[in-house]
């Protein structure tokens, strides 16, 4: 580990909001956690955690790869790299039956297209279902990741188009009123990591509430980029800036990834 003071000095000298977001998300993943990893930002954060402070985190992708340790980030959920570096590869039915539904997952790590104040997620359609303005890819594994994982983390850049008052389609379940009375095994979304800060469910209402701001971000910014009346915690913490090590490892990972994926057959 490098000297923290020096590291901070280096770090502050320049990092992007996206880097802060990935670093903040990565810190939430403890060592030895079993994490069901979505492709894209969740995969970036989970692997960063694994490379920094959680070497024994168990990363599982829905393509059937268990305990995978990719050297470069996968572009798709089923890249060969995930199989090559996995402890074992199982079939997709087994993945969803024995491992996710089996209750073996501590943390489900998801991305999203849209989210509401309860952590409900939409990745299906914008507009009416039968005549959509935008047809999104659909559910994938999210509906059952959201309910069968012990808890759920979501990572998503904040914007009024993404953080909406009402979803056109609930692809996967959050907390709040919708969850009432449903026998959901898991605790649902416990962290929403954005490029501005971190939201957590209010202990009483379950509404996602701003509990941490990243350095430089303001409550006003966060409110402006949220499509509902954002609640702010009484005690708002500031996310520590990325350390030199965090930035170095993240940038190296992304560099390796870009190089690997630009390649041909």
């Amino acid at each position, binding site marked *: 580990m490098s000297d923290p003071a020096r590291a901070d000095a280096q770090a502050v000298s320049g990092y992007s909001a996206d880097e802060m977001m990935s670093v903040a998300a990565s810190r939430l993943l403890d060592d030895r956690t079993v994490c069901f990893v979505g*492709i*894209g930002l969740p995969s970036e954060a989970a692997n960063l955690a694994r490379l920094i402070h959680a070497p024994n985190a168990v990363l599982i992708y*829905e*393509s*059937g*790869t268990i305990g995978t340790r990719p050297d470069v980030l996968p*572009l*798709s*959920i*089923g*890249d*060969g790299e*995930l*199989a090559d570096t996995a402890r074992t*590869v199982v*079939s*997709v*039915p087994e*993945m*969803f*039956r024995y491992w*996710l*539904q089996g209750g073996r997952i501590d943390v489900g790590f998801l991305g999203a297209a849209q989210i509401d104040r309860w952590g*409900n997620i939409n990745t*299906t359609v914008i507009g009416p*279902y*039968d*005549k*959509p303005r935008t*047809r999104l*890819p*659909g*559910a*994938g*594994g*999210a*509906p*059952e990741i959201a*309910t*069968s994982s012990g808890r759920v983390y979501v990572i998503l850049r904040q914007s009024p188009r993404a953080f909406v008052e009402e979803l056109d*389609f*609930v*692809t*996967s*379940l959050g907390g709040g009123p*919708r*969850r009432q009375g*449903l*026998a*959901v*095994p898991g605790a649902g979304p416990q962290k929403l990591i954005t490029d501005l800060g971190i939201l957590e469910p209010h202990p009483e209402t379950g509404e996602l509430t701003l509990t941490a701001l990243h350095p430089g971000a303001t409550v006003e910014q966060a409110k402006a980029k949220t499509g509902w009346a954002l609640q702010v915690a009484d005690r708002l913490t500031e996310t520590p800036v990325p350390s030199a090590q965090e930035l170095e490892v993240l940038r190296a990972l992304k560099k390796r990834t870009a190089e690997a*994926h*630009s*390649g*041909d*057959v």
Partner: protein
Amino acid sequence: MHLEEAVRRFVKDGQSLSLEGFTHLIPHAAGHEIIRQGRRDLTLYRMTPDLIYDQMIGMGCVRKLVFSWGGNPGVGSLHRFRDAVEQGWPQPLEIREHSHAAMANAYEAGAANLPFAVFRGYLGTDHQKHNPDIRRIACPYTGEELACVPSIRPDVAVIHAQQADREGNVLLWGIVGVQKEAVLAARHAIVTVEEIVDDLDAAPNAMVLPAWTLAAVCEVPNGAHPSYAHGYYKRHNRFYTQWDPVARERDSFRDWMQRYVMDCRDFGETWSRLQEDGHV
């Protein structure tokens, strides 16, 4: 068997088909052959419809799509799929939408010759509003409510694998997805393979599909391209990226399909043209 013959013998208009592959081993060459033979009115199943389904939809082969995630992985939308859903071009596309868990369980139940699958799913989501296939069933012992879906039992399953031996036994490895389930759930199964070998030399408990479970085995090297075949070639990521602008416009899409599929005798010719034009 030659792929042209396999498709001609086993794939008919109006049937239900699964061309499966979870990023890995996607049967592109077989999809091209179905397009080339002009099959129409198909119901397609697939957990992760991507480029080959986009092509089949854009070429007017498909009436209905049952799926759980449709996209160009790491790139963006399937433009032909969206055009069909949003604009009805070249024809309206009926969709029936699931989660991965539902589809995986439905294939598993299909392989097990059961009429339906039971699982913990769809809690608090909107899928049921738009998909009447999704229902609830009570556990006869605990009274617990669980989700259920009809099993998937397609007329024809089509997959790509790494190897077959001369008897037609097939071996696949790496990310195996729902391919075994799709094959065993279907009435007929067509398998394209990278290579026919003398001896599969399969590890104990490897995934082997015995010859007698398959309708046809066809040697088609590179038949999964631009997807990959573990141990043979990597995923052609650049192709996926370059597909995006091609598929975005109807004309450029049709031109591409004309040159690389419709005007080709078989996948070998497709491959030659892709090489000629510097795409591979």
